[in-house]
């Protein structure tokens, strides 16, 4: 079991080593720098969690839907909408003083509700009109992104900072009041590792998903529906309801990721239209889910590793190391890991087709 992932890692290092060599870089020292920046250096683990937390949410969101073969590609948009609704809740219910459980709870509920509502649009279209949810959920990502830009740039909306000289120079969203900022726990190790509250919520969400899919009738039915819709209908399972419920759960998790962006990391909806939208957490989450084979706990682990890779990319790039090359190496590592997955899932058998036993012909 260890052989395949180990081999795909070795392959990844070998392949990207060739790329590094061809571009005139020392492969070994580059790797050392990568790992150092991701997991070892002072404060590195905390910075890795900054990337890993949103990936865990979008990864779980994708995994929740994909398990039922419901291809919700809209994690990106659901995260953005969740961030919008959660920021509204934080602005409305927050006040001065320390973190307030009420304000944070309101943000969590609002983020989940926003994400779920956004996911229910393709959900309803799929359940009642048999629309392809891949396309509708994908398209809604762009709508959500434009909505975010619109709220900050093109209107004097509730979210937009409208007072002060800074706000006149460059439009930004309002800062969240201090009681709406999510607290984190600091581990005093290696320059301090900050565990964001959102990371705790992600672990909780993973546990809930695991129980849901492996211990409840709901989860069982959802998986049967995914594997064989016809068999499920024979057994009297309600397809439409299940589609709506699973889409809502998936969207709620992504929306919670948006709330965590507000509360944990940005402390505002978005300071810049090139901020949150340029991270593409929703799309990376799909890769995370696939690598984790839709297993919720594996999603957490993969999100952590991919988050480390993303965080290290910021350190690795520089005048002597183009950011494009960082992307290539990250791509090779992910590609190899996914390729290795294929080998785990399917067995390659080299067989000489015996002449004696031709495949039985299907009924003509």
């Amino acid at each position: 079991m260890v052989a395949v992932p180990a081999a795909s890692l070795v392959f990844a290092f070998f392949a990207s080593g060739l790329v590094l060599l061809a571009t005139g870089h020392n492969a070994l020292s580059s790797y050392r720098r990568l790992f150092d920046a991701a997991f070892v250096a002072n404060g590195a683990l905390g910075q890795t969690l900054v990337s890993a937390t949103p990936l865990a949410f979008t990864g779980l969101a994708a995994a929740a839907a994909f398990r039922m073969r419901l291809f919700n590609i809209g994690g990106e948009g659901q995260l953005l909408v969740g961030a919008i609704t959660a920021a509204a809740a934080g602005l409305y219910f927050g006040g001065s003083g320390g973190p307030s459980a009420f304000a944070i709870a309101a943000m969590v509920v609002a983020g989940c509700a926003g994400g779920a509502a956004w996911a229910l649009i393709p959900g309803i279209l799929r359940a009642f009109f048999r629309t392809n949810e891949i396309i509708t959920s994908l398209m809604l990502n762009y709508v959500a992104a434009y909505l975010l830009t619109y709220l900050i740039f093109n209107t004097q909306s509730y979210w937009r900072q409208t007072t002060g000289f800074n706000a006149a120079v460059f439009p930004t969203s309002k800062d969240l009041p201090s009681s709406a900022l999510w607290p984190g726990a600091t581990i005093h190790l290696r320059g301090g590792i900050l565990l964001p509250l959102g990371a705790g919520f992600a672990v909780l969400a993973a546990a809930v998903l695991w129980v849901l899919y492996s211990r409840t009738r709901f989860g069982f039915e959802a998986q049967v529906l995914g594997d064989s819709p016809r068999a499920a209908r024979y057994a009297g399972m309600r397809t439409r309801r299940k589609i709506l419920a699973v889409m809502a759960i998936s969207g709620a998790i992504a929306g919670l990721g948006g709330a965590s962006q507000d509360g944990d990391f940005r402390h505002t909806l978005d300071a810049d239209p090139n901020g949150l939208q340029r991270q593409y957490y929703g799309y990376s989450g799909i890769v995370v889910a696939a690598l984790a084979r839709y297993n919720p706990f594996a999603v957490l682990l993969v999100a952590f590793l991919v988050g480390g890779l993303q965080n290290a990319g910021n350190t690795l790039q520089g005048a002597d190391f183009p950011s494009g090359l960082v992307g290539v190496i990250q791509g090779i590592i992910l590609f190899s890991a996914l390729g290795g997955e294929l080998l785990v899932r399917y067995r390659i058998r080299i067989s000489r087709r015996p002449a004696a036993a031709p495949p039985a012909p299907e009924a003509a």
Partner: protein
Amino acid sequence: MSRGKSVRAVALLASASLAVLALTAATGSARTEQRSSAFKVAWIYVGPHNDHGWSQAHDQGRLYVQKQLGSKVQTTFKENVAVGPQLQQTVASLVRDGYKLIFGTSYGYFDTKLAAKYPQVLFEQATGTQTAKNLSEYFGAAEDTVYLSGMAAGAATKKGTLGYVVAYPIPEVIRHANAFALGAQLMHPGAKVKLVWTNSWFDPSKEKHAAESLFSSGADVLGQNVDSPATGEFAQSKHVPWVGYDSNAKKFAPTSWLTASVYHWGPYYVRRVKAAMNGTWKSGFYYGTIKDGFTGLAPYGPKVSKATKAAIAKKMQAIKTGKFYEFAGPLYDQKGKLRVPKGKRLNVQQLYAMNWLVRGVIGSPKG
């Protein structure tokens, strides 16, 4: 997915992460940063360092610093950095790697909170407004040079309709659009400038579409306040004159190229790096001008006539000596309302908050 399978998946991932951790442990303590005496300076760019526009102009400034100060400094850059957590991660890694002075070349990168978090590091931000003991702001009065480049555009138009590809509906871009229009109207009275917003600093495909739509709606000269030369490439394909921005991008449109308002970041960067090295660095707000040699015009293309060049040179001299200022009254907005009365001049604060477009600009200041 069966339970057996999911257990296997977890085992697989656990082993993968073990492998990663093993590698990390093996290489962990070895730091790649050499301890050298060179003063470390970093730049953070919003787009690619070779965008042939805004970020590239800054990177040329960086190379100028490296060339002027040689081995006494070590410079690097981080490109395509988004505002928010990614910026925080990037700054954290730069500080960890020993960078003492960091230039951020986009609004929203640095604020007083960040400056307070790293009191031992000096920060400088282009186009911003927040200052602190270790956070400085700098920018150039490009409205003057954009006005001059607008004159070149106004001289080139036949129909009196120009197109201007713009990024975001923010004061910085709005004042440049206004300056461009005023310059064009000086050479071609009554000229109209149409705007198309891309909502991005660097997006070649959107910029090209914007240029296309401006061209098809009747613009016979194109200008821009975005970072890539995509508009120029389109202009060249239609043989339409083009005014660039930020960098000399003539090679993308050899015959369409007129000129561009450019920044000379290099000398400023050298001054600031030197000051940081010898401990005389002070926080402040710097607004460079033509007179300082901070802003200027890129070399002209073949379509700019001698008469136009002479007119622009004369105007440039008048701006330098303070005899002329494009944002002096009377100035009217799109609806014909008097915004700046005769005898009044806009100051930098007003420029930084400009949210109205001058008469003859077609488009909304809200995007």
